[in-house]
């Protein structure tokens, strides 16, 4: 168990900056999930912490010690790679025992320790197999086992579930969470999957093009997204955005589609006419016979619910999540409840909170 502190961590490959200053602090035993689209620098961040890449600037402090110059071997960190990276020529047992062998444990101690972890992961019967004789889920478990068995200070997970099928992903997700809680190892978990991010993390760091955009609990990220990028990235189906302007002395928004919505929680700063982006999640759009007409383009049944994708009179796309029984065939009327709208500045995309 250990704490991890990153201070203004930067990385450029040649003249291409990939990470623009990451700051974060992990408490002992905490699981932090870093979420972001492909190519935003998640793997690079993990590799910096692991010591596989050298940072361009910034500090990495593990348990109070600056590990900047240290070899990966000396950092006592374990990593679960996206494609598992098992040693193909070694059996499951040897894969897990490798790190212990290097640490000079006795043969008996190794056998005992690997046996315990294998039992924990349900790998007991597979110890003599080679990786190529295992299914994807089993390989994934071995990769986890190899990391766990060493009892490292820090776990790094680089999209460990992305190569599994959907069902297995759900079970493994729960299992990772259970193991992490039980062992209490400080963990950094990287994913591009927002569901994984929401369910796994104590806290989330949303990364966008190498910049941290929000660092908060999953619920807070969902309920109060820091900007339009986060708002659109977290939540499925994605949030709707509509253009509008500040009006009525800052107490309401006049949407370009001709609807005025008074803010439920207070005034927003700025002069009337300030350009705004209003976000509303599909599940919050209200079917309302007195509302705006929505021309249905497409229905996406999800089982008990249906996502309606349609167009407002001005041509703006809008998706609405309704109960299966309420699914329209051609058109429906909708309104936007004031309590559920998110207000963003149109230029910078940043969230605008009510001024008291």
């Amino acid at each position, binding site marked *: 168990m250990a704490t991890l502190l990153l201070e203004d961590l930067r990385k450029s490959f040649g003249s291409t900056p990939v990470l623009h200053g990451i700051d974060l602090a992990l408490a002992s035993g905490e699981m932090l999930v870093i979420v972001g689209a492909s190519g935003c620098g998640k793997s690079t961040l993990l590799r910096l912490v692991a010591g596989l890449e050298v940072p361009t600037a910034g500090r990495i402090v593990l348990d109070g010690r600056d590990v900047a110059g240290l070899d990966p071997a000396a950092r006592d960190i374990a990593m679960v*790679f996206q494609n598992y990276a098992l040693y193909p020529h070694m059996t499951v047992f040897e894969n897990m025992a490798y790190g212990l062998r*290097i640490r000079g444990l006795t043969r008996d101690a190794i056998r005992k320790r690997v046996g315990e972890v294998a039992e924990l992961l349900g790998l007991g019967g597979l110890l003599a197999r080679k990786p190529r004789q295992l299914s994807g889920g089993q390989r994934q478990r071995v990769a986890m086992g190899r990391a766990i068995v060493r009892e490292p200070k820090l776990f790094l997970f680089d999209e460990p579930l992305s190569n599994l099928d959907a069902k297995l992903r759900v079970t493994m997700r729960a299992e990772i969470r259970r193991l992490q809680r039980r062992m209490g190892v400080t963990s950094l978990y990287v994913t591009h999957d927002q569901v994984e991010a929401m369910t796994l993390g104590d806290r989330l760091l949303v990364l966008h093009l190498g910049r941290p955009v929000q660092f908060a609990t999953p619920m807070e990220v969902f309920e109060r997204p820091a900007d339009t990028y986060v708002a659109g990235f977290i939540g499925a189906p994605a949030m709707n955005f509509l253009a509008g302007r500040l009006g009525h002395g800052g107490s309401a928004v006049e949407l370009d589609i001709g609807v005025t919505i008074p803010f439920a929680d207070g005034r927003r700063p700025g002069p009337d006419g300030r350009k705004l982006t209003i976000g509303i999640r599909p599940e919050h759009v209200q079917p309302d016979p007195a509302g705006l007409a929505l021309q249905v383009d497409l229905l996406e049944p999800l089982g008990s619910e249906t996502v309606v994708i349609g167009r407002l009179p001005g041509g703006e796309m809008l998706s609405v999540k309704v109960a299966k029984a309420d699914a329209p065939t051609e058109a429906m009327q909708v309104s936007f409840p004031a309590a559920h709208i998110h207000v963003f500045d149109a230029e910078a995309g940043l969230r605008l909170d009510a001024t008291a």
Partner: protein
Amino acid sequence: MERRTIFPGIALPMLLVLPQLLLTVVFFLWPAGQAIWSSMTRADPFGIRTQFVGLENFADLFSDPLYVDSIGRTVVFCAAVTALSMGLALLLAVYADREIRGRGFYRILLIWPYAVAPAVSAVLWILLLHPQIGLVGRWLNRAGVQWNYKLDGTQAMLVVIVASAWKQVSYNFIFLLAGLQSIPRAVIEAARMDGAKGWFRFRTVVLPLLMPTVFFLLVVNLVYSAFDTFGTIQALTQGGPGKATETLVVKVYRDGVVNLDIGSSAAQSVVLMLGVIVLTVLQFRFLGRKVAE
């Protein structure tokens, strides 16, 4: 996916493989058949009559201490050439695999020797090692070493081993480098995170994953050193001094072409041919297994 074209009839397919078949027959089956036939005949001292003697040439061969010596010499030579060229190539490949500046240039330099003809390479080695005119040779003599590979059998053996190995380093280098690069980087990184360093990591992770390539090259190098080094040896020492560098191929040439003992020479060729066949089968086995996995 496998794609197969089925030709109608028999004439066209036959026509298409004919050139290859013709080449095989003219340049391999025919001379090989002739060698097998010759190996069972013996000419009288004046070369006027030849008579069929069955396997007598082979019996003579294996009871001839000179031939047995030559086998031993060839084994030593092959082992040394293979070990030296593969060891050196592995070392170079490991360094070329790293992220270094000027890597492309370095690689081209290493691949070059492969394009040099045996005779040319031999001349280069003579220019280096000749006791009177060679750079290294003169330096050795000045440093007090009695260097003259034209008189000293051990030195001659060293020279042909080094020259033969040098020529094969490029080939080995290319394969070993490709082998190293096909090892997933993440596996090496996983080993680094597990705490494995330097030689230990190389021995426990890199080398085992390189084994298929190493086995393949082992066979190729044995074939090379046993059969393809004739040009190099002939140009450097002609098998001498005495018989110090007379490997099996050189002996075939000396007995057949120089001493005109066609029967014995043919029997030796047949033995060598069997050797090649065994090694080739081995090689295909290894290749086949690699592909099957």
